């Protein structure tokens, strides 16, 4: 009872402690996100030194230069690719999410894990697997040849870029759509059929409107990061058609034209903010309009009660599409594993089974050095993110903090700002402050991107705890500290582990932020893989990729399937 007050139940009255716990997270957001972005904004108006660097002052030249057809073309192409990828991911994501959500309850977590495995697998590994798959002599080309098509290699090609972009971001699209579909009462489908709605009607009038928020998140979560991608166009597109991400990286790291890079980053940032605001407005407009739809359903009396032959065909069709998508998700991983044991050095021949590449992997000193760096950075960043995230989540969930929505929004900023913009602004602020790039800057950069994840995971876990539990402990004589130690901490331990492992995985496979924050001698594993890949794919990398896939499985097992599902697809609606 007393629904409006129940939200407040179990929350500790406002106190200095609550705000004090928010302090570390606020420091991270202000010092490592907001200030750097302000610096970038200022730099975008600075005069650039022809010899490289920033002369200060004020000019609009940088923005004027961006109107140059070369830049406009890249910008237009990037926007087009990002939009295309967002739409394809969302449509395919909708079909897959619908497929999963309509399976029986025991099968759903299994299918979801099948989406999670590629999602958590290292981004670069997922990308270079496509080189193996589509490259010269690879399985796809062999298949084409078998059918008499004369093809050499699909890498580099536009198709390879499109496919690997879809592959990279599809899981991100599935989770929010599945989350919103899971809260839809499954009997609505039968009710719609009973009221005469066919397959299209059921989806257009019931499922689509009800999963609108999930679809909007999906578009946002795929559109924004696609804009900042720079690895895929280089590796699979041959660098012919760069995306904005490539341009920004080039401007900062090769041309050292920071003001122009800053201006381009600002454009990306503004585009991104505009699209977020647009999506928000669209969603807000939709909501009151929804009841209108309930009147117009044309009753089709010819096909009473579930007898929609067309509906069954469509259901079967989408099911087959979904199954094909699962195959699509595992083809690259399968290729990776198979070729890691291939004794031939070239991918077009399979000469037999060998452990040679694994042996070479462990003999590669530079790779092991990079692995060590990534492990150290990952451990420290994940530890910091988990501790700060725990304090933040605890303050926001357990205390009656004024301005909660504001704090939650602030902590989520790094999730909406394109990573590439975060990266260049961090680089700028570190060089301005005279902090040399190295372990410290890497860790700080990774804390920025992992903190929101850790905070979200822990906030979800804390708010799903029955508020009566801590009241019961208090009632039974426990002090706040004893309540924390004997009740809250043991119950939150799995979520703390999950937050840590997800943060570690995110940091470990990050390439964008590392590109800008790593220094000489602190090359991370993805950076090392990337530079190796630019000269060509080696079988050794397949072995490394296979090990990383195994490590991903380990992380998923450690976190637990049910917890993974809660983190990525929201709390279960049916207990």
């Amino acid at each position, binding site marked *: 009872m*007393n629904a409006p007050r129940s939200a407040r139940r179990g929350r500790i009255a406002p106190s200095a402690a609550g705000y004090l716990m928010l302090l570390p997270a606020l420091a991270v957001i202000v010092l490592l996100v907001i200030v750097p972005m302000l610096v970038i904004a200022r730099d975008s108006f600075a005069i650039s030194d022809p010899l490289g660097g920033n002369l200060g002052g004020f000019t609009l030249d940088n923005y004027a230069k961006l109107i140059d057809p070369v830049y406009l073309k890249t910008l237009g192409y990037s926007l087009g690719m990002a939009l295309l990828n967002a739409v394809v991911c969302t449509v395919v994501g909708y079909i897959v999410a619908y497929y999963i959500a309509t399976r029986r309850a025991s099968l759903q977590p299994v299918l979801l894990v099948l989406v999670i495995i590629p999602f958590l697998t290292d981004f670069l590994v997922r990308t270079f697997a496509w080189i193996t798959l589509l490259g010269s002599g690879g399985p796809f080309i062999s298949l084409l040849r078998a059918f008499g098509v004369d093809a050499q290699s699909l890498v580099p090609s536009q198709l390879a870029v499109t496919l690997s972009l879809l592959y990279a971001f599809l899981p991100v699209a599935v989770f929010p759509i599945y989350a919103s579909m899971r809260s839809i009462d499954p009997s609505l489908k039968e009710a719609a059929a009973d009221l005469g709605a066919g397959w299209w009607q059921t989806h257009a009038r019931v499922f689509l409107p009800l999963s609108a928020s999930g679809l909007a998140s999906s578009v946002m979560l795929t559109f924004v990061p696609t804009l900042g991608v720079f690895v895929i166009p280089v590796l699979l597109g041959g660098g012919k058609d760069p995306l904005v991400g490539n341009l920004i990286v080039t401007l900062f790291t090769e041309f050292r034209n920071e003001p122009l890079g800053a201006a381009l980053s600002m454009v990306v940032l503004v585009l991104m903010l505009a699209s977020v605001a647009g999506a928000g407005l669209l969603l807000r407009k939709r909501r009151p309009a929804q009841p209108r739809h309930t009147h117009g359903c044309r009753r089709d009396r010819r096909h009473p009660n579930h007898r929609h032959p067309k509906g069954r065909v469509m259901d079967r069709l989408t099911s087959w599409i979904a199954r094909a998508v699962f195959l699509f998700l595992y083809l690259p991983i399968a290729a990776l594993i198979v070729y890691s044991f291939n004794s031939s050095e070239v991918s077009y021949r399979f000469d037999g089974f060998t452990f040679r590449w694994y042996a070479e992997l462990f003999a590669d000193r530079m790779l092991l050095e990079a692995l060590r760096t990534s492990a150290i950075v990952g451990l420290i960043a994940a530890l910091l993110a988990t501790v700060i995230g725990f304090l933040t989540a605890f303050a926001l969930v357990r205390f009656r903090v004024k301005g909660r929505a504001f704090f939650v929004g602030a902590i989520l900023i790094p999730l909406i700002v394109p990573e590439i913009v975060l990266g260049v602004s961090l680089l700028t602020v570190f060089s301005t402050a005279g902090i040399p790039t190295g372990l410290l800057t890497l860790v700080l950069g990774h804390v920025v991107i992992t903190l929101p994840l850790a905070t979200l995971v822990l906030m979800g876990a804390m708010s799903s705890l029955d508020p009566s539990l801590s009241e019961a402990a208090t009632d039974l004589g426990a002090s706040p500290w004893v309540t924390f130690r004997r009740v809250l901490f043991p119950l939150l331990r799995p979520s703390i582990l999950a937050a840590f492992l997800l943060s570690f995985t995110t940091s470990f496979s990050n390439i964008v932020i590392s590109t800008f924050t790593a220094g000489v001698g602190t090359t991370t594993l993805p950076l090392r893989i990337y530079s190796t890949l630019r000269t060509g794919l080696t079988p050794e990398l397949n072995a490394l990729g296979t090990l990383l896939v195994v490590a991903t499985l380990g992380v998923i097992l450690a976190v637990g399937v049910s917890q993974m599902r809660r983190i990525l697809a929201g709390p279960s609606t049916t207990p």
Partner: protein
Amino acid sequence: MNETTESPAVKLTGLTKSFGANQVVQPLDLEIGRNEFFSILGPSGCGKTTLMRMITGFETPTGGSVELDGKNVDSVPTKSRDLNMLFQSYALFPHLSVYENVAFELRVRRTPKREIDGRVQDALALVRLEAFAERKPAELSGGQRQRVALARAVVGRPAVVLLDEPLGALDQKLRKEMQFELKRMQREVGITFIYVTHDQEEALTMSDRIAVMSEGRVLQVASPTEIYDAPASRFVATFIGSCNVLDGVVDAAGTGVVVPGLGALPASMPAEARPGSGVTLAIRPERVTLSPAVTVPASAPSDGVAGTLLERVFLGDEWTFHVRLASDAVMTVSVPSGAAAAALGAIPDGSPVLLTWAASDARVLPADGSLVAPSSSSSSSPSAPSAPSVSEVPA
């Protein structure tokens, strides 16, 4: 209520709570005796949960004070108050076994180790769950979880246990069993139980006394029989069990009630009834006698009211008859299944009937139109949805 010279277990003085402009609990005074099974009964949102949470210390009162065992506890935090709570959700610690859940308070309060085991075993024996000590809460049924929560609430031997709708999550049959179990356990442990519920049947079967609450006010505090037989207000009359209510005025002599359209009706007049004042007449359905209009029993306690039999509804243990009176109001009469009801079987629907009752069974209540129970549903005789009940039809 103050049979002993000891101070009451709980004493509330002018206790009140507001959330912003919304006064959820109006200032109230209440005393709850030692070893009493005391129920706070009211519909959802009447303020009973807030009242309970102020006693436990989870909510800070806006005004007034709480005394436990004669001592003011306004500045005593929850953990130091000598009372425990049984939560609606049970709030069992999911990571601890049944045994450790029950032992929690003893461990937190640093009870000597050798004492803990015996007391936990005693508490588990009380709720008959000795065999389940090592299970986790997730491995128990709803009823068993509820027993664990009770064992955990009493193991520290508090002076008072507060129970927040503890049977709400159980199914009908289990709920009935647990009502008797709770009463037995309360007698066995000799602890004051404050039982918060919206279920009048639970309150009637278990309580020593009941406080009926509505809109933040305590309307009546009395024993279950008194609450049922002598409700103090129209709200109490219609909220507890079902009740026919007729609006009228006290006649000139102050000896009866005149209901428009029906004339003077028999009623037990309170001494303070002033001629001409508006009152409500409340008559329980089972206290009304229904007879065919032609055979008025000579032994009729007083003049009856004529009406038309609308319909009858079979409820298993009884029949409910709906009778339309001359004033257009519909009265409900309940008759136990068996010979009496069988005799009435001959009366066809639509025929004239006579309703009679003893004057002592017709309570005269102040006309408080503002306090009308949302519905007079009850398990003993729910009124058929098709027939408007009297309280909804202005007489």
